[in-house]
Structure formats: structure tokens, C-alpha cells
């Protein structure tokens, strides 16, 4: 018995769209088995995870609020991954972005007079900080050939510790009873709510705008073409005279900037102050979202909603069904694995050949 993979001459768009759905269905199936092993009826769990979050206005808003940073970070990462570069430190870039933007808000705290500049300045600071932080692995890669995978990941831990230090030290609210948190941001440093009395804030719009821009750049510009070409055919890209170093810096800048922006949007939106934890792992979950969405902005948007849905569903399931949160994480990891595996069906004809003999080409 042997497994033969024969590359398809051309990829079918149908299969490309279908395989993530297939992987998702398989993951849900395995998840159902796991859930029943934990003593909960799979149908009930399915309702809690995938249907209940969409049944009420407030929980739909929660899904959108979670999907926005995921989609934003994942789109940035898609530029990297398409170009065959592995920024896996988006979580750190997100944290640094939130921290830098938060510092602007804290510096402007209690300010009187004209304050309209504060919020834009926060967003710019957050984006630039994320970008700059992503430049560390990018420059080390370009100048010294250091693996960007390991450096970008190591910098996540460093960023989290930096934030921890800042909110326990220099940025701690002096009137905060020694709690490790900054002052609450003034209203001019908060993203406005979109509807009176609801939780959806303007950050979702900023994220949507950035997403649309990224989709445009990737699909319609020379730079976007360059990114796609380097990923699919590095040799052709070299002949075309595209500079690998310049591209590396550019895609890291985009992904770092997007993650930084997502960080400050979360801090200026939902949280409203700096605290030791400002991310429930968005930077890592976004990696799943990027692949689930097949590294294309429209796909990523859908994937972000699906993953956000399971995350909210997971929180509900923890309360309602006493199902552990780790189940959601395991599900997401499994899903990513299955998506990557299912991708083979889109790329190749998969054949199981009996006996030890290789299949002969039918030419």
C-alpha cells in the first residue's frame, strides 16, 4: 500500500473553496466525538458553539468585535505567508502596538482643550510600533540570515513581559490601589460606539477599511503581484528583478503594522486602559484564520467570523455546558491541521496504490 500524490495540472477554484469547508466539517465531526466523550450531547454543543452566538444582537456584536482583530492580523500575515516568510510573532506586535498607543492616551490623560488629535495619534503610534517591532526579525533575516520564525516568536514573550513591566511600573495608575493597570482613558481617547448602548465600536470600521485596502493591494497592484509571485515561483521573481530583501521588509512591515493597529484598536475600544493582558491570543489565532481563509482577504474575512464564532461559543459552552476552554483551542489547532491536509486534495490527485509499486504515469 502506498500513497501517491500527483500534482494537478491546474487548480480548480471549486476545490480551492471546497477543501476548507470539508476540513471544517471533519473538525466539527471529531469535535462532536470529543464532546460526547466529555459527556455532553453533540447536538446541544453544536447549538451552543455555532448557533447560539448568532441568535442575539449583543452576541453577534461580540462575534464581530472578535472577528475584526483576527481578520486584520490575518490579512497582514497573509502577505508574509504568501511570500514564503514566517512571521509568527504577530501576538508580540499586537501587544507592542497596544502599549505604544496606550502610552499616547495616558500622556494625554486629563488634557483640556482641543483633543481630536489624540485618537488618530494613538492609532498611528500603535501601527508604527507594531511595524517597528516586526522590523527586528525582518532586519535580522535580511542582514544576517537569522531564521525569522524563531526570532519573531521569541519577541512575543519579550513584548508581553515589557507590557507587564510597564503597567506594574511606570504606567501604573497612581490612584489605582496598586492594581497593575493604567489610568482609564479619557473619552476622547476611546473609540466611539457605533450605536447607543451597544458594544460595537468604531474599531470594527477601521479594521474593515484596512482589510479592504489590503485586499486591493494584494489583488490589483504591482506590489501585490510581487508578493504572490515570490510565493509561487521564487525563481521567476528573481528573474523579474524583484528584490527579496525589500520584499521581506515590506511584508513584515505590513503584517507588523496590521497587528499593531489591531492591538491599539482593542485597547482604545473594548479595554479602555492598559493592563497586563490585552490579548486572548489573537496573534496566534490569526495564524489559523489566515490559513483557514486560504491566505486571501475574502476567505480570511469568512474564516475570522467562523473562528470568532467558535471562540464566543466556547466561552458560552464553558458556562452553560461546563466544557473546558481548552477544547476550543484544541479544536482550532485540529482545524488548522485538517485545513493544511485537505489542501492536498486541491493541489494533487491523491491515490492509494495497493502493493509497494509506484503508480505509472499514463502517458
Amino acid at each position, binding site marked *: 500500500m502506498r500513497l501517491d500524490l500527483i500534482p494537478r495540472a491546474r487548480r480548480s477554484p471549486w476545490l480551492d473553496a471546497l477543501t476548507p469547508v470539508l476540513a471544517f466539517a471533519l473538525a466539527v465531526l471529531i469535535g462532536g466525538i470529543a464532546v460526547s466523550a466529555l459527556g455532553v450531547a453533540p447536538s446541544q454543543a453544536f447549538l451552543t458553539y455555532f448557533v447560539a452566538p448568532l441568535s442575539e444582537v449583543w452576541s453577534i456584536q461580540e462575534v464581530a468585535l472578535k472577528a475584526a482583530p483576527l481578520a486584520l492580523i490575518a490579512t497582514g500575515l497573509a502577505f508574509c505567508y504568501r511570500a514564503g516568510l514566517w512571521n509568527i510573532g504577530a501576538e508580540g506586535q499586537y501587544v507592542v502596538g497596544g502599549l505604544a498607543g496606550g502610552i499616547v492616551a495616558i500622556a494625554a490623560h486629563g488634557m483640556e482643550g482641543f483633543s481630536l488629535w489624540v485618537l488618530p495619534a494613538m492609532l498611528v503610534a500603535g501601527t508604527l510600533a507594531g511595524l517597528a517591532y516586526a522590523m527586528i526579525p525582518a532586519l535580522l533575516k535580511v542582514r544576517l540570515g537569522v531564521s525569522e520564525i*524563531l526570532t519573531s516568536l521569541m519577541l512575543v514573550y519579550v513584548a508581553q513581559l515589557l507590557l507587564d*513591566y510597564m503597567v506594574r511600573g511606570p504606567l501604573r495608575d497612581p490612584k489605582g490601589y496598586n492594581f497593575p493597570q493604567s489610568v482609564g482613558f479619557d473619552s476622547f481617547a476611546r473609540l466611539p460606539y457605533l450605536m447607543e448602548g451597544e458594544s460595537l465600536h468604531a474599531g470594527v470600521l477601521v479594521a474593515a477599511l484596512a482589510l479592504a485596502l489590503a485586499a486591493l493591494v494584494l489583488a490589483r497592484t504591482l506590489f501585490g503581484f510581487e508578493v504572490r509571485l515570490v510565493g509561487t515561483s521564487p525563481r521567476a521573481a528573481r528573474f523579474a528583478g524583484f528584490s527579496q530583501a525589500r520584499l521581506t521588509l515590506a511584508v513584515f512591515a505590513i503584517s507588523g503594522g496590521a497587528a499593531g493597529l489591531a492591538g491599539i484598536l482593542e485597547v482604545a475600544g473594548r479595554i479602555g486602559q492598559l493592563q497586563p493582558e490585552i490579548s486572548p491570543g489573537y496573534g496566534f489565532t490569526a495564524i489559523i484564520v489566515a490559513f483557514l481563509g486560504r491566505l486571501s482577504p475574502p476567505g480570511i474575512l469568512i474564516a475570522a467570523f467562523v473562528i470568532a464564532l467558535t471562540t464566543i461559543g466556547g466561552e458560552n459552552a464553558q458556562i452553560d455546558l461546563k466544557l473546558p476552554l*481548552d477544547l476550543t483551542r484544541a479544536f482550532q489547532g485540529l482545524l488548522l*491541521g485538517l485545513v493544511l*491536509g485537505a489542501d492536498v486534495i486541491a493541489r494533487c490527485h491523491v491515490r492509494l496504490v495497493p502493493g509497494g509499486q509506484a503508480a505509472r504515469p499514463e502517458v
Partner: protein
Amino acid sequence: MTLDIVQMVLVTVLTAATPLILAGIGELVTERAGVLNLGVEGMMVLGAAAGFAVAMQTGSTGLGALGGAGAGVLLAALFGVLTVGLAANQVASGLALTILGLGLSGLVGASYVGMKREPAPHLALPGLTDLPGIGHLFFGQDAFVYAALVLVVAVWWFLGRTRAGLTLRAVGDDHTATHALGVKVRKVRFLAVLFGGACAGLAGAYLSLAYTPFWAPAMTAGRGWIALALVVFASWRPFRVAAGALLFGGATVLQLHAQAAGLGLPGQLLSAMPYLATILALVLLSLGRRRGGSPGPAALGQVFTPSR
């Protein structure tokens, strides 16, 4: 007296280095076969949870260690099916493995949070273990430590001195050529991946059975990633992995002592040291490599689909 203090420090360095040696040596074999498995952290943390769970259920540290290694093998098998069998992207699959491993370890370990057990027994040889200055260092460790050291020598011997090791290295350097010679490339790679998983799982089990000894969620704290960096740092040589792990173990111990001594540095900076040191080590290494060092296995990270 001072000799005893030196010994005490060296013992802690060795114990801090052991999980890195175990996980690093496994990943080294995997990478020498041309497969980059970034899921070390996931296999390690699942090994820690499963190892502790099995040990609590059976009351046996040995079975716990086996359980940890087994859990690592299971996760590695999934990775092998994806990357070796289905030619999926190795980097992304490794990340999936890490996320999956973290989630599963939480599920497996949930009911064991807060429980403690006796640490793995240490060797006690009458006469030898009590030798002043060196007794505890050489004759008073637990089985994991000795296993790690034996493993390093065994892997060195296997890779450099046996035919099978030569085949494995050839697969990692040029899968097309070895395939043409009739070597079963995917089988070799799959086995190498499984070996890496067993070692990572064992490293995790060491953490929860001997090092701490209890289970806490995400207790590996990035050690799997540091082990990955260590393999690069060691230029894919077994003894250098051990040496690098001891250096890192030393840095960890130094950090703990500095924290205790209260040098006025923020604790967060000291906690960030292992990660910053990893980056620094990689930078220094690549500076050195410019003047001619050994690069990694030539086919590392490349997927292989056999030609018909």
C-alpha cells in the same frame, strides 16, 4: 564546602538543561532527516500533561515517562501524516501542532491541576553518591538526566557511525537523489518525526514528573521553542546540542539567582533573558557562519512528493 556549593549550582544547571537536551536531540534527528517540526512546544506540553496523568493513575514514574513519550509520538504521527504523507506545509503544520498540543494538554491535565507527587527518584549508590564535591552531580541524578545524556551519545553514534544514520542524513540533504537510489524517503522521515515526538514528550514528562513535579497549564513556557533554536545554534550536531542546553540551563539558573539576590533589575527583564539570549545566540551564530560554518540539512523544510 565551596566545592559543595559549586556542585549544587552545577546540579541545578544540569536539571534545567535536561528538558532542552531531550527535546533538542529529538528535533535534531527530525531536522537531519529534512523535516522541520515546529510543534516541539505542543508535543512537549502534551507529554507533560499525559506523563503526569499516567503517573498519577498508575503510581509509577516510569510508566508516566512512557505515557509522556507516547503522547508526543501520537502528536508527531499526526504531523508526519500531514507533512510527510500529504506533503503539507511544515511550518504551518508545526504551528497547528503547537496549538493542538496546548489545547489537548489542558484537557488531559484539567483534573490534575494542583496535585503533587513525589519527584522521580534519584540514583543513590552507597559510597559514590556521597562523594564530596562530585558525588551528587555524577551519581545522584534521576533517570531522565542519565537517559538524556545516553541519548546524546546514542544519536551521535547513530548519525555518524551507522549506515542507517548515513541514510537518514542523506534523506535530509537530498531527497530526490536518495529516492532515486531506492531509499524509502517518506518512511525514513516519518520515523524521524516519531523519534522527535517521543523525545519531546519525554522532555515534557521530565518537567511534570521530576523538575517541578506537578502539572500546570502551559508549564513548558516556551522551552520547546528554545529547543528548536538550540538545534540551529548547535549547527545540527548532537554534542553541541548538549553543550548549548547546558549554557541555557546555566543562564536560567543565573536568572533565578539574580532574581533572588534582587539586583534592582526588574523581574520582567530577567524573565525575558532566555528569549533575548536565544535571539542573541542566533545572531552570533549567523555572524560566525559567514566565516564558514556548517549550514543545516540542505532539504530542511522542503516537502517531498516522490516522482513516479
